[in-house]
């Protein structure tokens, strides 16, 4: 597909055209915390500072708190009502790691039973990717088969080539977005070459490397090594930061609220790091911290790939950057015991 381009000066206009039909989300800072917010129609200064958001774009599909349905008791019994959320969205500036995160989450939310809320938002959202220009020192997307500038998981891909953005049309829906405007021009071969060179440069900037070849096997071999996992888990404080900020973590809790005879059922983020996550009346299979830490690592790099053929990690590095105690998963993955340890007898 022939590439297109747009001058950086015209970005606000382009977003403005899209904003007429869709809710456009762009990166913004609230109390110095970068996140995707509804575009105010004017400000595109994020292009100057934006590296990545703190809250990943999964929040647009699986919000931290979501009303599933409300209920009310009438004379003839209970009536339920699902919130009508047909709003079409466009997220501008999603990074390849976050886009891959959503593609990864798609697997679990569409298999066997479609997750109504996730899927309806997903169907109504367009993703406009933005190639990285300045990866963090904690980024390791390239170790997971991603490139900070490639995005098979978005509808359009923007790459900064100086005064302009090169635009790649990835899906038909993405192509349609560019049809109605003269702001977008054909890119030249020189533009393509420039983009290619810049992409290679950025890719080389991702310096952290983690060898995840055979990681599932290594994890399986050391699964029962309590001493190892206790050491690994020692400084973890069992909060939920890594899981909540992870683009591929999706665990949720369902709860009800009731005031007089009406209320609603909600779902919200939950974390396998929390001690009571798996608690049953008589026992808790993950009472000890090392079991929870083991679960987290194994789920992402062993169990999820076993089920869906894709690693539940995109190397975005948020868990490393924002962990209160600097627990670093790349260090753990790089230092798994390589000798097979036989599973201990129960």
């Amino acid at each position, binding site marked *: 597909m022939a590439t297109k381009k747009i001058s950086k000066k015209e970005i606000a206009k382009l977003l403005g055209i899209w904003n007429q039909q869709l809710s456009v989300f762009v990166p913004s800072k609230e109390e110095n915390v970068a996140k995707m917010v509804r575009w105010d129609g004017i400000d595109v200064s994020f292009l100057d500072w934006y590296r990545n958001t703190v809250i990943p774009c999964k929040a647009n599909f699986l919000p931290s708190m979501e009303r599933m349905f409300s209920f009310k008791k009438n004379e003839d019994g209970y009536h339920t009502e699902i919130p009508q959320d047909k709003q079409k969205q466009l997220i501008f500036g999603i990074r390849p790691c976050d886009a891959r995160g959503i593609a990864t989450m798609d697997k679990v939310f569409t298999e066997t*039973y479609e997750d109504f809320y996730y899927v309806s938002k997903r169907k109504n959202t367009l993703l406009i990717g933005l190639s990285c220009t300045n990866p963090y020192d904690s980024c390791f997307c390239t170790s997971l088969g991603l490139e900070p500038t490639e995005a098979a998981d978005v509808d359009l891909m923007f790459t900064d080539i100086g005064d302009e953005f090169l635009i790649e049309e990835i899906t038909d829906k993405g192509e349609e977005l560019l049809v109605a405007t003269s702001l977008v021009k054909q890119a030249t071969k020189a533009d393509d070459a420039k983009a290619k060179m810049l992409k290679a440069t950025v890719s080389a900037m991702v310096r952290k490397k983690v060898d995840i070849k055979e990681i599932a096997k290594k994890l399986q071999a050391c699964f029962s090594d309590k001493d190892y996992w206790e050491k690994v888990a020692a400084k973890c404080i069992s909060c939920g930061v890594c899981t909540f900020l992870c683009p591929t973590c999706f665990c949720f809790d369902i709860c009800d609220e009731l005031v007089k005879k009406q209320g609603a059922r909600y779902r919200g983020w939950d974390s396998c790091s929390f001690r009571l996550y*798996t608690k049953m009346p*008589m026992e808790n*299979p993950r009472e000890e911290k090392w079991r929870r830490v083991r679960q987290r690592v194994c789920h992402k790099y062993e169990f999820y790939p076993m089920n869906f053929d894709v690693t539940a990690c995109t190397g975005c590095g948020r868990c490393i950057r924002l962990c209160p105690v600097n627990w670093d998963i790349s260090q753990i993955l790089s230092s798994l015991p390589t000798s097979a340890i036989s599973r201990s007898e129960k």
Partner: protein
Amino acid sequence: MAITDINQRKKLIAKDNVYLPHLVVIEKIIEETPSIRTLHFNFKDEKLRKGFTFESGQFAELSIFGIGEATFCISSSPTRNDHLECTINRVGVVTNAMHRLSIGAEIGFRGPYGGSSFPLELMRGKNLVFIGGGIGLAPLRSLIWNVLDNRDRYENIDIIYGARSPADLCFRYDLDSWNQDKTINMITTVDKGDKNWTGREGFVPAVLEQIAPSAKKAIAVVCGPPIMIRLTFPVLEKLGFAPEQMITTLEKRMKCGIGKCGRCNIGNLYVCRDGPVFTYAQIRNFISDEY
């Protein structure tokens, strides 16, 4: 059997929104023990009342609007589907609220869930040994009635059921029926009897060893508290049962029931999506020891 190939899992009673419960109305309540009651209920929707079906071993998510949702196995048999039954042990917020419901109350029902149910085809033509403890009889009873309603498909039937005390015995009306059924060898036991108890005393695994059912052409189905199951398997092995001949249901904390909220996993398997029924052979091959 446990369907670990996710492509084989069935979509049952798919609704537009899988999280929106169907409404069911409570028709009858049986107080089994001071902390356990069985609810008989039916769908409000006519079509569902007629068309709903499930398999023994599957479970449902019942909810009381405003209180919450919890997982219960369907304790009635799919062969007797004029109504549905679930048995509820009072342990937390939702179950305590379930114990305060009256006939006519409306609750939410999501289901049937569970990617693997009791393998009736595997059990066909075999001698069956049902081993239950306490409220663990609930999923078993769905299976037992299912089997009895097609009695000629199966050979000998042994039922060994035990509870902590006579007051803790569940489904007494079923125990009576099975006692009177001459094609069933019904053994009831309690850990400790009271002054009126004239029956057997002893832990279920110990009683199983005494009764010593033959493992030849047999399938054993075990349901009960985890400790009972863990002590029963070695006894069955001693009696000559191969791991493929031993079947059980596993229990974990659940929320969504459909393999999405992430909670009930044992390694890469979700008890809701890939279970809850597993053979001992499968369990021994679990990559995780968290069961």
